């Protein structure tokens, strides 16, 4: 892997694929074709090795430890924080909080907003969200009485930003929108959303779970207040999330969980909290996972996010063209600004039936509502078949997919 440096993906696809052992396994007697990357991406050897190495060489509880192992583990853990600080161009490492995942990150913020909201206030969500960016805020509204407004979308699966402007007012306290829709792939114009929100004094949380794996994100340039993502979607391990928060906000936000690490002094009468980032990292974190997430970040940076984007755009275009040749296939989400996600149905065949048939041919796709029921409600469908590409996928795999879909369609019509 050491030799991969900002490599052009297309010319190096074979050596890239070799880094992902799972791509060489078979499913139901067929070579696995993994097209469920928006649910979770696969894991390269360097990330797997990082976890093994951690447990073989430096496993130890971090912070406060005086012995060498604990020191080394702490250093690696804190170095990882610096990597993410640099990657996202945050102002300080203490603006990077490690959590258990995007969902955890969002709940940390939404739960803190409990203190900032009253029943006169409003918060704004979009119709394009993953349940993880809806439900925590609904729970918040239930507790505080605040009202939730919804940015509508058009038939292409794009948010209506004029409607958004009309929803904004000085009652708006926070706006939470995903950078990229997991169900449709739409890339939202979050810069405009952030700027407009700030003009009425509202904070903005951006759910970047589907963005971080595909292109570079600069939180300072975006001037975003909170930005969240999950490591398992960018070739990292499960159980790790990243929360970027502006220092001003993280200072204001109350601590989420209580425990070790996040406190300075504890007596039964009074407890004082630690400074950032420890205030939000109660208990023993997923140390091995966090360190491995940093290795995953290094890995995608070594290939180069520009190269990844270029190649994935190419796959997206190729797949879209081929899929549209299938009789009766309809794509949902037709924004010109999309990541490599295609949601579709064929005729009125149930997506679940298609998914089952092509699974038997070794092809992994996701079917259903993709944790985004409001989108399905909008299109008045029970669900879709979703294929989502990573930089290790190939046009050959897309050809096989298309043939399998044709077969399934014939069988099931």
């Amino acid at each position, binding site marked *: 892997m050491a030799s991969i440096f900002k490599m052009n993906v297309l010319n190096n696809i074979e050596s890239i694929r070799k880094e992902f052992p799972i791509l060489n396994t078979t499913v*139901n007697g067929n070579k696995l074709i993994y097209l469920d990357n928006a649910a979770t991406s696969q894991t390269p050897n360097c990330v797997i090795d990082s976890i093994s190495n951690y447990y073989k060489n430096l496993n130890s509880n971090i912070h406060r430890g005086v012995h060498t192992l604990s020191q080394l583990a702490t250093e690696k853990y804190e170095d990882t924080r610096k990597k993410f600080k640099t990657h996202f161009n945050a102002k300080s490492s203490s603006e990077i909080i490690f959590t258990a995942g995007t969902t955890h990150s969002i709940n940390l913020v939404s739960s803190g907003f409990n203190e900032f909201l009253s029943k006169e206030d409003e918060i704004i969500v979009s119709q394009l969200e993953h349940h993880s960016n809806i439900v925590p805020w609904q729970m918040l509204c239930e507790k505080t009485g605040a009202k939730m407004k919804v940015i509508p979308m058009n038939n292409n699966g794009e948010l209506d930003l004029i409607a958004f402007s009309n929803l904004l007012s000085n009652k708006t306290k926070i706006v939470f929108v995903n950078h990229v829709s997991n169900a449709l792939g739409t890339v939202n114009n979050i810069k405009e959303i952030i700027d407009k929100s700030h003009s009425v004094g509202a904070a903005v949380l951006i759910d970047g779970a589907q963005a971080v794996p595909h292109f570079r994100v600069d939180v300072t340039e975006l001037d975003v207040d909170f930005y969240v993502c999950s490591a398992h979607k960018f070739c990292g391990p499960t159980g790790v999330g990243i929360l970027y928060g502006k220092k001003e906000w993280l200072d204001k936000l109350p601590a989420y969980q209580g425990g070790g690490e996040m406190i300075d002094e504890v007596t039964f009468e009074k407890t004082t909290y630690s400074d950032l980032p420890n205030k939000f990292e109660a208990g023993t974190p997923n140390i091995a996972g966090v360190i491995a997430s940093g290795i995953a970040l290094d890995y995608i940076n070594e290939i180069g996010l520009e190269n990844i984007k270029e190649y994935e755009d190419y796959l997206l275009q190729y797949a879209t063209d081929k899929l549209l040749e299938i009789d009766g296939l309809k794509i949902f989400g037709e924004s010109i600004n999309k990541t490599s996600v295609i949601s579709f149905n064929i005729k009125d*065949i*149930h*997506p*679940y*039936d298609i998914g*089952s*048939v092509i*699974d*038997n041919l070794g092809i992994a796709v996701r*079917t*259903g509502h993709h944790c985004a029921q409001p989108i399905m409600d909008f299109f008045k469908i*029970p*669900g879709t078949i979703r294929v989502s590409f990573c930089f290790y996928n190939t046009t050959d795999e897309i050809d096989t997919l298309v043939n399998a879909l044709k077969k399934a369609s014939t*069988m*099931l019509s």
Partner: protein
Amino acid sequence: MKIKDIQDQIVEEFDIFDSWMDKYEYLIELGKSVPVIDDSNKIEENIIKGCQSKVWLHAEKNNGLIEFYADSDAIITKGIVSLLIRTFSNQKPEDIINASLDFIDKIGLRQHLSPNRANGLNNMIKKIKFYAIAFSKTN
């Protein structure tokens, strides 16, 4: 025919097919013959949970025997339901309650069903037995 015999018959029918694809196609074919539930019975309480697809199941008792009606929006699911209905329809409540089900494994479909679907299947069987228990207490 007894429940056991019907199951054996199903296993025999599927034995003809070598590939899962042929089995799937036969299943889909069978799905088309399912005694379709009346639209008026497609109500919330007749929906079976645990499937990505929806399944409705309704039962009636005639002359001491239970008759099942079903539908699903997914055609493979409907095929599976059709096998269940064929096995359990026109049987006495007690026989349904006491029946053990093995044809799913024997026709080699288990490994081609997702756990979602297997989960859905378990829920269907539960619902069928639930009807049988309910009817065993009525006349």
